[in-house]
């Protein structure tokens, strides 16, 4: 259920590395309970923005405001592009880690929570497996299980479909939508995947040269009479058509 009240507000965010300015004043509003996709060309600053939101990078200027409860670090999770799973820990231990280190739950309660999270993502049979023994898609689900086990109010996804084939990409977005509804979190997704973003998200934002060029609904994005937005939308339509045609063939 989308609540129009924002869970996250970003104003005038700036970040540079030496002389290279990556974010030159980003504004963003994320409504509670929605899926917001951040689009942009390579080097537009999408991942840097996400790392600033997660507290991994300190902005040079600007404001990031997380509303009521989401400001707590525990309530905001991050799913890394390469999953960032602990390769020396089993699937169970990976998911249990945030609970062991940041809560006062008893071991039996942690076990119950972890097994429930693994079961929800279809990984209960792989609890003893190490990340290297799992497929790419299963690792992605394991990363999501670890991100969701603390019941966060907001989950940040960094390029969740990078390196996956079209079917798997579709599966990842379906998974985000399905678990967003089941666990009631707000999703902020950085992606290059325009067709999936426009079909699965409630709102999209486009970063262009370090600034927010557009933010609105996918319908507004598609209907906009703007050459830059059109280039993204046309690309999305072409890709979707190609995928559909290839699928029929």
């Amino acid at each position: 259920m989308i609540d129009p009240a924002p869970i996250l507000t970003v104003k005038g965010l700036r970040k540079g590395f030496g002389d290279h300015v990556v974010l030159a004043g980003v504004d963003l509003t994320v409504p509670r309970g929605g899926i917001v996709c951040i689009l942009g060309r390579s080097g537009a600053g999408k991942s840097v923005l996400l790392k600033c939101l997660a507290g991994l990078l300190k902005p040079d200027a600007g404001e990031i405001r997380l509303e009521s409860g989401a400001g707590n670090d525990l309530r905001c999770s991050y799913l890394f592009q390469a999953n960032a799973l602990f390769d020396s820990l089993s699937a169970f231990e990976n998911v249990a880690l945030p609970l062991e280190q940041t809560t006062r739950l008893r071991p039996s309660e942690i076990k119950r929570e972890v097994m429930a999270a693994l079961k929800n993502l279809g990984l209960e049979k792989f609890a003893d497996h190490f990340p290297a023994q799992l497929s790419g898609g299963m690792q992605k689900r394991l990363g999501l299980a670890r991100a969701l086990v603390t019941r966060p109010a907001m989950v940040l996804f960094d390029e969740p479909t990078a390196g996956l084939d079209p079917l798997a990409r579709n599966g990842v977005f379906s998974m985000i939508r399905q678990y967003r509804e089941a666990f009631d979190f707000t999703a902020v997704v950085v992606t290059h995947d325009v067709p999936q973003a426009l079909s699965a998200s409630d709102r999209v934002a486009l970063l262009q040269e370090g600034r927010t060029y557009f933010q609105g609904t996918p319908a507004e994005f598609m209907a906009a009479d703007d050459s830059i937005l059109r280039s993204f939308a046309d690309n999305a339509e072409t890709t979707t058509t190609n995928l559909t045609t290839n699928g029929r063939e």
Partner: protein
Amino acid sequence: MTGLLQTLGRKSLTVVAGLGDFASFVLHAFVAVSRTRHLRKGVARAIHQQGVRCLLVVTVVALFAGLVLGLQGYYVLARFGSAGLLGTFVSLTLTRELAPVLATLMIVGQAGSALAAEIGIYRYSEQIDALTTMAIDPLGYLITPQLLASLLVFPILTTAFVLVGTFGGYLSGSCLLGLDSGVYWSTAHTAVQFVDVRECLLKALVFGIVTIAICCHSGFTAHRRTGASGSRAVSISTTRAVVLSSIATLAADYMITSFLV
């Protein structure tokens, strides 16, 4: 001339900033003791990594060090008609000097390098960032257990080095060269005083903290290596950890000895 001074100034500032960063890193890791949960599990794993895995190499090196000391000591002392003091020579040399230094160098070579590489890989595979996003202090989770384990492992392995090395001296001095074993063991026993043991354990403690902190810091800051990234940066960090730890061990050895002698 001005250019030279500027370069010297820049280098000096870099060294001072690096030392400050290192001190803050170690301090933060110790302060994190009070906040880190399930520390015992992490310390037990670190004791296994630093202690159990290094026990064999430390024992073997200690045995050969004792054998060589016994051989060299016997012939040198025999020239002055003092071969009976071989036990004193071996036990004091090991206790006051060789055991803490050699045990430390062996642990650094075996466990310290692995630690630097492991933490460097954590850095490059974003596992350290993942800890931060899960509200887990990376220093408390990764570094604090290693530092606490070093407080226990280094004195124990140094003590083992002294005992095995003294036995090695007995093998070469008494079993091979014919020195009376009663004379060897009684001189070895009476020569070592409380102050010698204190110096030995103090050195082991200081070397342990300093070297493990250097190894952890090198891995943790692998992403800051200029001109390299990824596996190359991890490899440079590992080499750097071993070299800096070895230099720091010998420098600290000189300083502690000059204060205590």
